[in-house]
């Protein structure tokens, strides 16, 4: 107010009104700004609070099992009989199963996904890209229980007769289904990364006499590698964490699998199929939380390794 009186005394009335208006607007804007700032801070904190809460819960509920079963027996034990008397908890079969199923899914989804992304980004006419990409992304929207049902009805009989197996409910079947589920993420994210590569790179490559394939292989993909690696990690993460599909079609045998064509039970499926009848605080309950803890550590490790690889790649590329 003092300021406005001062300006009136100085002269021009219209200038005073304009200045006054600007000031009040700025005050209101600052208030709104603060409100939004606080809101964003709250949202960020909430994410951290939730994460810490989950870690605390996993540790609190999961660690006590190691008083019953020593950690090495828990990791390397091959017998899982949670409802027997006395119960034994060994998670080696689940661990190997998760690795196998994830490996199958990755082995299929990564080459197909990157190939598809390279086609869409580098070769396909705009019209094709604009129709195909949304269709592939739609694949990500199919609920996992539907994928399980499709695997059960269509894929498992096919796998059984194709590989001449006693049953079609195997880790391979689950891995193929999971590759279909992680494909849209890999295609979509790597295609975005490839399209973000500046056209100057391609032009320079062609100017040097490189063919289309050489340009894609030696220029575009290396330039987009950080985005592609992120896409692959997201795909692997999806495969490790997927539960329903694996529970339905991986077969659920407790033996340590020797090949992907055997029935097996992943860590996620073990948690899902056991948590229902585990009494809160009981031994089985603790053991399942301990599996959850290990799963958490595994995904964390995957992310850390990915970060390392990315950083190294970036440094190499910058040179």
């Amino acid at each position: 107010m003092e300021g406005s009186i001062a300006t009136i005394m100085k002269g021009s009335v219209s200038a005073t009104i304009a200045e006054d208006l600007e000031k009040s607007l700025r005050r209101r804007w600052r208030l709104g700004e603060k409100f939004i700032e606080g809101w964003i801070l709250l949202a960020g904190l909430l994410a951290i609070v939730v994460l810490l809460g989950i870690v605390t819960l996993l540790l609190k509920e999961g660690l006590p099992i190691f008083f019953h079963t020593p950690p090495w027996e828990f990791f390397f034990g091959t017998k899982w009989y949670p409802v027997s008397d006395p119960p034994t908890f060994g998670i080696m079969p689940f661990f190997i199963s998760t690795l196998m199923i994830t490996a199958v899914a990755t082995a299929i989804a990564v080459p197909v996904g990157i190939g598809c992304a390279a086609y869409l980004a580098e070769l396909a006419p705009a019209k094709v890209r604009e129709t195909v990409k949304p269709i592939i992304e739609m694949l990500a929207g199919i609920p996992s229980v539907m994928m399980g049902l499709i695997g059960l009805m269509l894929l498992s009989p096919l796998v059984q007769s194709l590989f001449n197996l006693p049953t079609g409910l195997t880790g391979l079947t689950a891995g193929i289904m999971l590759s279909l589920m992680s494909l849209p993420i890999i295609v979509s994210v790597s295609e975005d990364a490839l399209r973000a590569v500046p056209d100057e790179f391609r032009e320079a490559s062609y100017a040097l006499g490189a063919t289309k394939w050489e340009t894609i292989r030696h220029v575009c993909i290396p330039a987009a590698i950080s985005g592609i690696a992120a896409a692959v990690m997201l795909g692997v993460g999806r495969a490790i964490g997927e539960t329903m599909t694996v529970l339905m079609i991986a077969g659920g045998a407790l033996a340590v699998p020797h090949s992907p064509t055997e029935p097996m039970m992943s860590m996620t499926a073990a948690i899902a199929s056991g948590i229902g009848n585990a009494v809160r605080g009981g031994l089985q309950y603790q053991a399942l939380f301990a599996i959850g803890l290990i799963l958490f550590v595994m995904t964390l490790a995957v992310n850390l390794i990915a970060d390392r690889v990315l950083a190294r790649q970036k440094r190499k590329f910058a040179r």
Partner: protein
Amino acid sequence: MHSRLKRKWLVLSLAYLLAAAITLAGCSGGTSGTNGDELSGSIKIIGSNTVTPLTSVWAEEFMKMHPGARISVSGPGSGVGIAALIDGTTDIGQASRKMKAKEIEQAEANGVYPYEIQVATDALSVVVHPDNPVSELTIAQLSAIYTNRITNWKDVGGNDAPIVALSRDTNSGTHVFFKEHIVQMKGLPTEDKSLEYGSKVLLLPSTQEGASEVARNPNAIFYPGLGYVTEAVKPLGIKKTAKDEAVLPSVETALDGTYPVARPLLYYTDGEPNGVIKAFIDYSLSAEGQQKVTEVGYVPLK
């Protein structure tokens, strides 16, 4: 600077409060009213996959007779129902096996006093694909199949083909009952309590999935309740020992006691039931309710 720091703390504590509120809201709840004047109120029933088809029919009929009553039924497995009863999150826990002494202990430690009511009987059937030439097995042979000591159908008089032994997961009362009475051969001279399911046995999340895999796969063998036996699968005759006659599972053979693997289907409540829960259980035990048991494919009490 100072006021900014203060505000940061305010926001931080706000976030924490929010998280705490959400956690608390998640912990409470899950109980339902049992005070029934003029038969209204809701009943939550959870447990055995085997009992679920029967309970659903009863619940439907009961709700038709008493429009004020609301009954929700779900069947993830007996173990889930018993765990829910112990945790106090269900009104009736349905089970296809008896509660273990340890579970009753856990319940009493939680202030829950399980009250057992048998509502029907089931003849646990062993089924194979209709094309499978094997039509009868002894309990010892079944035990050998489910412990992976016999892995080829030719060893029990069938084709030269691998056996795919299907089982329910550990949530299931059928899993536990089958383990005690078939795998460990309870009540036979050869009984061996150290036997467990073989590690190559497939553990499936639902009875329906096992039944449809048997209908599709000539190598498979599975043990659903009598209510799940359809045209698409072939029930096997069970011989108590090699010298006994093979008996096919049916209402008659379960009632006259000749079928060797009949078992009770049970309801558990916290203490003696009253109000709308009592009315529902009374209905299930009535002549009318027991009539439904036969229709669903299980064995009535009388």
